[in-house]
């Protein structure tokens, strides 16, 4: 066969058993789960796993940390499955497939990370990798209130510059995180901006970065049934991209030609305004 590494095996779409090693509360809303799992390679920042909780459903989750024998996911309780994940205990089993998708490109020497909500999960792993590569980054994290700001100590431990924004002003800047983007883009030169979080926030960040001529990548969330490119449920119209395999990280310029920030498909495939 001449297809080389770009051909996957169907077995990669089966589940591997992952044993919960540790469950850590990050904020009032977010819980991190450390899963014992042997992966052939470290996931790239921005890649995600499909996590099947045998008593609930299977959902996509960004890798928020990983080592040679473990991965971490960091979960906001949003519905049935995410709240089951939050209740997992040491020794529990989950089914894992992946890592899937394309991650962030970490080219360049200085990066601006802009995250909010569950999006901070993907970015904390990116910032760890950036640190490991001895590169620089500034991390902007936004939340409603200070108790919902995750990974603060972790960012500090990485010795990275951190700016916070809370809507109620209980920590850092009072307002939304995107308010911090333009000032810092003016003050400092970045090779790239990476963003993950609520889609409106990402749209704003992408627009600002492009306005200032900085390459920007955004990591999207779409409804996913398979995670590996067959079902089509994660489509990004009208260009026909699949978030699971062509993404979840996309270049900002491409995203502006799509329904990014405007529509997403629901489980039936109906287009819904965001």
């Amino acid at each position, binding site marked *: 066969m001449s297809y080389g590494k770009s051909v996957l095996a*169907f077995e990669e779409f089966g589940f591997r*058993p992952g044993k919960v090693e540790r469950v850590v509360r990050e904020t009032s809303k977010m819980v991190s789960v450390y899963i014992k799992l042997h992966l052939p390679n470290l996931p790239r920042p921005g890649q995600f796993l499909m996590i099947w909780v045998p008593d609930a459903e299977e959902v996509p989750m960004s890798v928020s940390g990983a080592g040679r024998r473990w991965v971490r996911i960091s979960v906001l309780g949003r519905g049935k499955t995410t709240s089951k994940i939050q209740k997992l205990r040491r020794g529990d089993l989950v*089914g894992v497939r992946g890592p899937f998708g394309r991650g962030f490109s970490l080219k360049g020497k200085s990066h601006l990370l802009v995250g909010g909500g569950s999006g901070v999960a993907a970015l904390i792993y990116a910032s760890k990798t950036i640190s490991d590569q001895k590169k620089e980054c500034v991390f902007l994290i936004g939340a409603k209130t200070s108790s919902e700001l995750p990974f603060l100590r972790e960012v500090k431990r990485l010795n990275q510059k951190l700016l916070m924004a809370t809507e109620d002003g209980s920590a850092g800047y009072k307002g939304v995180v995107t308010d911090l983007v333009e000032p810092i883009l003016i003050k400092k030169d970045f090779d790239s901006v990476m963003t993950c979080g609520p889609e409106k926030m990402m749209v704003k960040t992408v627009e600002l970065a492009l306005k200032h001529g900085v390459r920007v990548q955004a990591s999207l969330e779409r409804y996913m*049934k398979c995670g590996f490119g067959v*079902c089509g449920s994660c489509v990004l119209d*009208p260009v026909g991209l*699949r978030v699971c395999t062509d993404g979840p990280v996309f270049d900002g310029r491409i995203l502006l030609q799509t329904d990014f920030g405007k529509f997403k498909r629901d489980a039936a495939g109906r287009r819904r305004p965001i």
Partner: protein
Amino acid sequence: MSRLTVKLGKLVLPNPVMLASGILSHGSLLEKALREGAGAVVTKSLTLKGRKGYETPVVVGVEEGLVNAVGLANPGYKDFLKNDLQMIKEKNRVIVSIAGDGPDEFVKIASSAEDAGIAAVELNLSCPHVKKHGLEIGKDPKLVRRIVKDTRGVLKIPVHVKMGFCDELIRSSLVAEDAGADAVVAINTLPAMVIDVYSRKPILSRICGGLSGPAIHPIALRCVYELYRELSIPVIGCGGVKDWQTATEFLLAGAKAVQVGSAVAIKGLKVFSEITEGLAKYLKEYGFESVDILMGSLEGKK
């Protein structure tokens, strides 16, 4: 006209490699598949009303295949024809798959689809029929006749029927042909299941599902081989096509075209151009002027 052009009755396609139903599903992705080299695309099977489908997991990888029970998730035929179809430039290369609950639904959806300007309809007779307690329509020759006859009666465009692997495959296909079907697509997935030994649970939320992919290719090939011998209408081979060799096997066995499903998972959308290029090279090397001459040219034994 290129070596690869095929005629499927009234349908003329630039090449015989189609996207199978239920893969990629949405309008913009079907458009992309056409741009990436598919000869035609078949939509997700559309139902009267939109369906969310079953809870995840709905598809899982196994040895050389997938087992899925997506549950016919689709936005409903109206929504699809309105939103998704508009994203596709060449509607004359779109085949709309229909999963109706009884002849009337098939007719209704098929008529609307024809009005929307598509190339052909594919009647999915191989998914469990609700009113008949989960029995596949294809296993019930009488029902096959009614659905095909009624749909054929109201349409101008070709009517394909998609069959599953079952004891009645040949008989039901002959009935479909007799009732006016323009082509038979064989085969759909085979009944299967996957168990997770660690949690001791079935993996799919619906417990059982259907097996697709290279694993079923030798089975599908035999179905096509036998159908080709029995039918006068074209047979379209589906099941485990993943490269030009597996496609060519179907064509040699008598298929007029092939459909690619699961292989999209391992090869991405480049699978279409890879197959058509391989096929073109093969035709040239073996001196076939056109893919038509290749079809059914399997030599006997000794």
